[in-house]
């Protein structure tokens, strides 16, 4: 596409979902926006690809888990082609003895849990309510831009937090304060006795992270993720895979006048007198705008595109040390028929299936992962998207998407040696639940953390542009000076998943950064 003019109101770097959301909001507010994406295709890790002729699948992320309704409405995504194949996708923990546990409080589902443990069935209802109440405390911090780092605002926010916590009653407040810094493993051990239930609930907290189930602070992660999830309407599957979601976002952005260019990598952000003035592409083109929003990794943006000489050395160092190597692999399979998962009701094949037999097996997998190895007892999140969205595969056939937790970025002895061993392990583990899986596989594609890094531009293969751990959340995300989307450079904003509230596919960093940029610009 030819660009008639080289001057814009705003330039958005990166065409992942957060970049698109930011650009769309800016466009919707009447700004002239240019969006530049380095790779030939928009979407980053949200992509639908053919893994074998006529078998299409979301190659990266496979569920839309945390996007608030409001963004969908504001951007009129339905009008631009967004169709859900399934809403509120249920979560089911797969059991080796065919007594699969559905994460729900419906009486029939609790009945199965009762078969594992009557006490757990009671405790589960209470546990869910308690986690929801905890998450509700954090929700205002998650869906809004954070208060500025100033002591006064911070104090006001904390005071508000404490007040609303006190409303829960002093006993709950006490348990909240006691449990929050602890580990999810200890918490679950306290509450439940069924190993499968504990394992699966912990996996829900730990997916994509590099922490073990007994790591301090993982309870906060659980509550935080719960808060993000509660801000949306539960996990959803998109018709046509997540690539179609990106298509809808791009169409929405275009309808607001956003000019989108792919294969346009930004070489540097132009800085004049401490303010962003525009960008220069790798091809040498220069585009000017008083607002530049980058959804790229904070390190790539600040160290690569801005350059250390425009930044303080302490900030440079903190960015340089953002911890972000990945912990997951993705296996996409084409199947010539629906595998039989023993004991699973036919309606539940479209669910989100978790494989995590116990906390011990998770902890063991984590220990292996720490030493650049993977466990023989793998923890997995599985979906069979074609159950809800038949056109993804030829009639009667299916695609299966598997996220494998605790796969190291580098394997001891190299991935060359270990890649096939990992595939065998995954298929072996699957066959415990679906004995016919081996015969069904037509084609497959395994993406290790380095592949995820290369293919989707996610440094280290980490989903979140920096771990979602206690020291990299809220006003510390991605670094104290860069929280609240603003940077020390006037006119430059960070709008990617590296910014608050972080990962999960929420679009919130994009929305909130666009709002912050327009607020500052309006004032100036």
């Amino acid at each position, binding site marked *: 596409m030819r660009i008639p003019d080289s001057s814009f109101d705003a330039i958005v770097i990166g065409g992942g979902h957060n970049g698109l959301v930011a650009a769309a909001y800016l466009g919707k507010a009447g700004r002239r926006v240019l969006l530049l994406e380095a790779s030939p295709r928009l979407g980053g890790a949200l992509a639908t690809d053919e893994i074998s002729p006529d078998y299409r699948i979301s190659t990266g992320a496979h569920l839309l888990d945390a996007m608030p309704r409001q963004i969908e409405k504001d951007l009129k995504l339905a009008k631009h082609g967004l169709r859900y194949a399934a809403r509120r996708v249920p979560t089911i923990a797969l059991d080796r003895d065919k007594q699969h546990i559905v994460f729900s409080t419906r009486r029939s589902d609790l009945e199965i849990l009762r078969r594992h443990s009557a006490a757990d069935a009671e405790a589960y209802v209470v546990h869910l309510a308690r986690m929801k109440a905890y998450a509700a405390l954090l929700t205002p911090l998650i869906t809004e831009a954070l208060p500025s780092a100033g002591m006064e605002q911070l104090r006001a926010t904390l005071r508000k937090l404490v007040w609303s916590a006190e409303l829960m009653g002093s006993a709950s407040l006490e348990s909240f304060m006691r449990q929050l810094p602890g580990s999810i493993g200890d918490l679950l051990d306290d509450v439940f006795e069924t190993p499968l239930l504990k394992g699966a609930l912990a996996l829900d907290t730990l997916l994509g992270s590099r922490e073990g189930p007994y790591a301090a602070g993982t309870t906060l992660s659980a509550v935080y993720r719960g808060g993000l999830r509660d801000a949306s309407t539960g996990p959803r599957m998109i018709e046509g895979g997540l690539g179609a979601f990106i298509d809808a976002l791009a169409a929405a952005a275009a309808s607001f006048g956003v000019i989108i260019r792919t294969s346009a990598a930004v070489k540097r952000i132009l800085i004049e007198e*401490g303010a962003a003035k525009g960008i220069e592409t790798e091809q040498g083109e220069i585009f000017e705008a008083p607002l530049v929003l980058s959804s790229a990794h904070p390190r790539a943006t600040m160290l690569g595109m801005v350059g*250390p*000489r425009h*930044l*303080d050395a302490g900030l*440079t*160092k903190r960015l340089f040390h953002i911890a972000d190597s990945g912990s997951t692999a993705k296996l996409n399979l084409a199947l010539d028929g629906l595998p039989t998962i023993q004991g699973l009701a036919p309606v539940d094949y479209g669910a989100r299936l978790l494989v995590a037999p116990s906390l011990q097996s998770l902890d063991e997998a984590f220990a292996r992962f720490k030493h650049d190895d993977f466990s023989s007892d793998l923890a997995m999140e599985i979906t069979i998207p074609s159950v809800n969205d038949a056109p993804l595969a030829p009639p009667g056939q299916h695609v299966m998407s598997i996220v494998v937790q605790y796969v190291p970025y580098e394997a001891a002895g190299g991935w060359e040696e270990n890649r096939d061993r990992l595939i065998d392990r995954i298929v072996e583990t699957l066959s415990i639940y679906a004995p016919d899986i081996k015969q069904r596989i037509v084609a497959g594609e395994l993406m290790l953390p380095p592949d995820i890094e290369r293919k989707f531009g996610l440094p280290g293969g980490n989903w979140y542009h920096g771990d979602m751990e206690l020291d990299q959340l809220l006003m510390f995300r991605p670094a104290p000076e860069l929280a609240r989307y603003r940077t020390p450079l006037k006119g430059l904003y960070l709008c990617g998943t590296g910014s608050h509230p972080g990962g999960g596919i929420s679009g919130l960093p994009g929305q909130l950064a666009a709002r912050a940029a327009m607020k500052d610009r309006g004032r100036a």
Partner: protein
Amino acid sequence: MSDDTDILLLTDELPLEPATANSQRIDLAAQDEAARADPLLFERAAEEPPFARAVLTTPLHLNVATESRTNLWTQWNGYTTPHILTNLEDEYRALRHAAALSDVSPLIKYRITGLDAAAYLTRLVTGNLVSLSVNESTPVAFCEDRGLVVGDGLLFRLGENEYRLVTETPHLSWLLDSAIGMRVRVEDVTSTLAVISLQGPLSCSILHEAGLAAIQTLRPYAGHWFDVLGMPVYVSRTGNSGDLGYELWIDPEDAPSLWIKLIEIGSPFGMSAGGFALRELARVEAGLPRAGVDYLGAFAAVDPAHASTPFELGFASLVDLDREHFTGRGALRAVRSVPPRHILASMAIDWHESLQFAAIRDARGVAGIATSLAFSPSLGLNLALATLKSSAINGETAFYVEAEVKRELDLSLRKAPARIIAGPALALPARHLVPAPIIQRR
């Protein structure tokens, strides 16, 4: 000794086998034979690992020890350094009336090179380096992100892309952190570069006598390579005595020869060697704060309130807020118009003999803390560098100190009036003179 005994005891109890014992005696011929067969035996021993040794000596240690009449030593950055060589009064007299020679090799020295060296330093220090040309030096301060001073020092430009930063305390980790993303190499050359300081009114005359042609034309803060007895020596007109003075930067292997030569030539001029106490006295007279003593670096202070901005340390002239970015610029711009929390000041205490005290008092109580004390023989005053609470400074405040004066078993408390002095207590005009004064030896 005890080791020996242990071995003896052990061998006592073992049945001796004379034949084998003899055959185990060192057989030189056999070893030579072995060496011929196995050259590995002659390989140099592995080098000492870094930081293996805590007590270091400078390349000039033996020469300096020769000058010592007191055996009073102290340590400076881990190096054994003379505290007083003869006596402080004599050393001081030589410094202010002739010249004093001292070994300042323990100064921390960093070599900074690379394509981005200039850009790196531009971001590191608070001052403007645009006018720093090759063979010149300039005092610099450097801050962290909050605008608090990490350290200060002297920056030499030795080549287009080669610099030397000389500081009082080590800063390697901060220098390396600041190098992230820059094509620059930072190395600590403290132990591989010896430095001899020659300060005093006759210092130029002595160097001239030593054959350093046109040394008198060297401008303050400038440096130049000279050839002394076939040894390359980099001479800079720098030092912290507040007077004319030079520092000579030389290879450690050559340093002893240069020292001997300077002692030989300088002695007839009345020059003497000086220790660390003299250096401290001279810098307090010159009003120069020392990092780690008079102020805490940003990373050394546990409480950020005890670290200082350059404005609080009197380094305002080392800061240029209107130039391109440097670390701490944003923070310093924000505090530019805010009154300082405390200030570092030179103070004079009118008393005829050396006093010991820490608290600077005013009518309301303790107004500040004195961190360096010195009795200046030339001024007949006690001098101090003190950090004063900004609330105590309003022009009219009368300060005093309460000193404990001990005479054998007699202890008395003395109240002595103290006042802030603007600028250095002792500033000798010769430090600016170009050409520097030369006095021919009579």
